[in-house]
């Protein structure tokens, strides 16, 4: 059941009404949420409901066990057992076939033919997301950042909350779990905000992402017959597709959460308007970046152990971040590419600081100074271009495909005539609306935030905008496809 399906259009209002009918008893609301979440998850593949329950029970029990003992050795043993279990299951489902295939290929290079077979396992939807959420809880309890949670139902609700379970935002226990442990009140403003975010998320997904996907696929899936100029175009469209797809999902998830009185974390803050690559990673998939920062980068030493170690840590974090997205060379390469960019940026920033410390104390100064608007614009353009390059790596299905695209672009190769020109119209219109709205409301809480006075404060104008968006959803929607991040 995806957010764009008819099934969800029925499911969500039913859950919403039942949920608020039970408003006097938040425990009953939690039971309903767990039931609805498992139903939602089982709709994709009921066989993996047990896996999700297993993850949840494992984390819940580990929290209780950690709370019962203070002996460091035992606590460490519990922690590492849980980490090994969680990551082990993730690796089996996600990486075993990938590494087995790589090993077989490597062995073949040395004339060996190992008698191994790949298992062809079906990846459970959302496994990377709920694994990380489960791990964060156990690690936080181990570190003493939060007390072990005792309520079984609320813990199950935390682990399986259907709006964010399959593709994030990756929530921390200390922000989401307490919300299930107190009565919730429906607030009109929150409900309106929820609907607005759902509408905007649907627009991003159905109009922008799905339309771009058609052109991107037609270019990237058969690169050997495409002309050189189509690859930059495809990469550019994919840049918007993946943003609209993933941030659209997050908008819908946050909107559904608000309708149920639950606040989820923001995952995007206009990432393509970042002035440098570091800022981009502070605005893109924020919850994943924070997870890696808190549970990997800082434990590895962060920036506390000298420049060299810091740069190595950055490369490790980004390499693993790429691998987290999927078992494919292109994802790892994309992670390393971004890591390398960040390393270069870090070194450049240090060099600049040494050169002109009084003029350039930090990039914030650049942005705040009106005299440096040109530099800011240049920074945004450069960062955006580097991102487009990164997405080209990310989108390529195989290394051979990537090299083919790059070589055809560099050699100005000519291919078959471009037949999708008409398909560009909805893409361009969609992207233009997306950028206009998001830039116009950049200082507000979210894209369709019409609160306040002025023209947009009038109901007639607001409703006209909503209706226009609904009309665009119907008339300009692309070929429906799943959310990209479902596969991760």
């Amino acid at each position, binding site marked *: 059941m995806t957010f764009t399906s008819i099934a969800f259009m029925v499911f969500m209002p039913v859950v919403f009404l039942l949920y608020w009918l039970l408003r006097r008893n938040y425990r009953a609301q939690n039971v309903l949420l767990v039931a609805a979440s498992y139903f939602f998850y089982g709709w994709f593949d009921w066989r993996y409901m047990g896996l999700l329950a297993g993850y949840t029970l494992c984390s819940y029990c580990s929290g209780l066990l950690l709370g019962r003992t203070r002996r460091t050795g035992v606590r460490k043993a519990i922690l590492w057992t849980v980490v090994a279990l969680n990551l082990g299951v993730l690796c089996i489902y996600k990486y075993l076939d990938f590494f087995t295939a790589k090993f077989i290929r490597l062995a073949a290079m040395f004339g060996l033919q190992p008698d191994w077979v790949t298992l062809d396992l079906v990846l459970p939807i959302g496994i990377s997301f709920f694994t990380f959420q489960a791990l964060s809880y156990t690690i936080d309890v181990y570190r003493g950042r939060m007390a072990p949670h005792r309520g079984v139902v609320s813990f199950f609700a935390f682990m399986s909350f259907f709006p964010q379970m399959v593709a994030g935002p990756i929530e921390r226990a200390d922000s989401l779990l307490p919300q299930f442990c107190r009565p919730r009140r429906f607030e009109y403003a929150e409900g309106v905000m929820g609907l607005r975010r759902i509408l905007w998320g649907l627009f991003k997904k159905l109009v922008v992402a799905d339309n771009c996907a058609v052109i991107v696929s*037609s270019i990237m899936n058969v690169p050997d017959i495409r002309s050189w100029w189509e690859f930059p175009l495809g990469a550019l469209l994919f840049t918007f597709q993946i943003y609209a797809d993933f941030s659209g999902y997050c908008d819908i998830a946050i909107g559904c959460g608000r309708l149920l009185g639950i606040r989820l974390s923001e995952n995007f803050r206009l990432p393509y308007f970042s002035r440098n690559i570091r800022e981009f990673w502070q605005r893109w998939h924020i919850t994943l970046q924070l997870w890696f920062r808190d549970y990997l980068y800082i434990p590895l030493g962060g920036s506390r152990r000298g420049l060299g170690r810091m740069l190595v840590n950055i490369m490790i974090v980004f390499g693993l971040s790429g691998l987290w997205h999927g078992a494919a060379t292109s994802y790892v390469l994309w992670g390393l590419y971004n890591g390398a960019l960040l390393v270069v940026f870090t070194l450049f920033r240090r060099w600049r600081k040494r050169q002109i410390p009084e003029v350039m104390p930090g990039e914030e100064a650049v942005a705040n100074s009106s005299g440096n608007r040109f530099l800011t614009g240049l920074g945004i353009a450069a960062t955006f271009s580097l991102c487009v390059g990164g997405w080209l790596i990310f989108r390529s299905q195989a290394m051979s495909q990537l090299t083919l695209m790059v070589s055809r672009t560099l050699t100005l190769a000519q291919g078959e005539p471009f037949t999708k020109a008409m398909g560009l119209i909805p893409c361009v219109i969609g992207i233009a609306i997306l950028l206009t709205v998001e830039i116009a409301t950049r200082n507000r809480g979210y894209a369709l935030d019409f609160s306040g006075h002025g023209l947009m404060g009038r109901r007639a104008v607001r409703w006209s905008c909503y209706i226009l968006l609904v009309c665009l959803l119907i008339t300009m929607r692309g070929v429906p496809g799943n959310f990209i991040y479902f596969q991760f």
Partner: protein
Amino acid sequence: MKKFLHQLIIFGIFLAVVLTALEYCARLSPDIYGRKIGHIKEHGAEIETLFVGSSLTAYGFDPEYWTLDRGYNAGFPTICFPLVWERLIKATLPHTPSLKRVVLELSYFHLDSSVDSIEMDTEWLNFKRLFFENGKPMDMLAFSSLSNMNYDRFPWSRGYMRVDSVGHVGGLETAKKQLLWNDRKEVEWTLGFVPENREVNKCALDRICADLRERGIEIVIVTTPVHPLADQLDVERQLSDTLEFVREMQRKHGVEFIDLYRMEGLTDDDFYDLVHVTSDSGARKFSRELNRRMRELVEMKASRVDTPAADAESETMSSATLAGMSNPVNLAS
């Protein structure tokens, strides 16, 4: 909560009014289906042969080369026999009193055409399913179909149609590459065997044949040319099943059959892709050949009426035509 639901309901009503108005406006817009049905309603009395089929007919058959009688190309860029019956033949019969013959296109994969996907290939905002599902095939809502920016996704709807959107991707070279990518298992492209769709389409086709024969209208099933490369798509099962079905229709309803699956004289330049001839040279050659074969058929029938001995000859011709229908084993060799 009350205020929220109250506002939501008012907004819903307001939205419904706006969408209904837009739907009405959209229905007034021109489209290929409306144009062709409109033409048949207006000039139906002049039509003697109606050509029914998918994009293979719509862009592959040029009535300019039809010399037998007054023909009209009623092909649309997809095929689904329940819809052909409900939305085309039933809708046009009252307006075509002179209709003598229906030429039905049947390529090896047509019986596999999805019934659902033609009604609506998306779950999202499927107005028809939401409000008009009644178990019968029916037209889509115009407004919803305006999203059809590729124009060939909802051909039965009232969306606009682009003539150059022929083919599944366009370009024989692309088709060749697709086969290559198929081999690499990187991109799936196939026109596969779908038993459940076959059953539905066969029932509908059987009903079409029975009804037309009852009205004394002749039926000619025609297979359209396919590029030899299509053999790589593993079509043996589809071909033999289609052939078997055609035989059954011949036995049951006495339909005629013209096999142009392996039409000679077509080069790579005459194909858009594996299954579509180009609308210029390909259509010209195909239309001429169809015209020639139809003339032969008509002359043979005429002579059969004149001389009883011609019956045996006709039987022979029928068998010869069937034998000529692409035998997968022969094709592969």
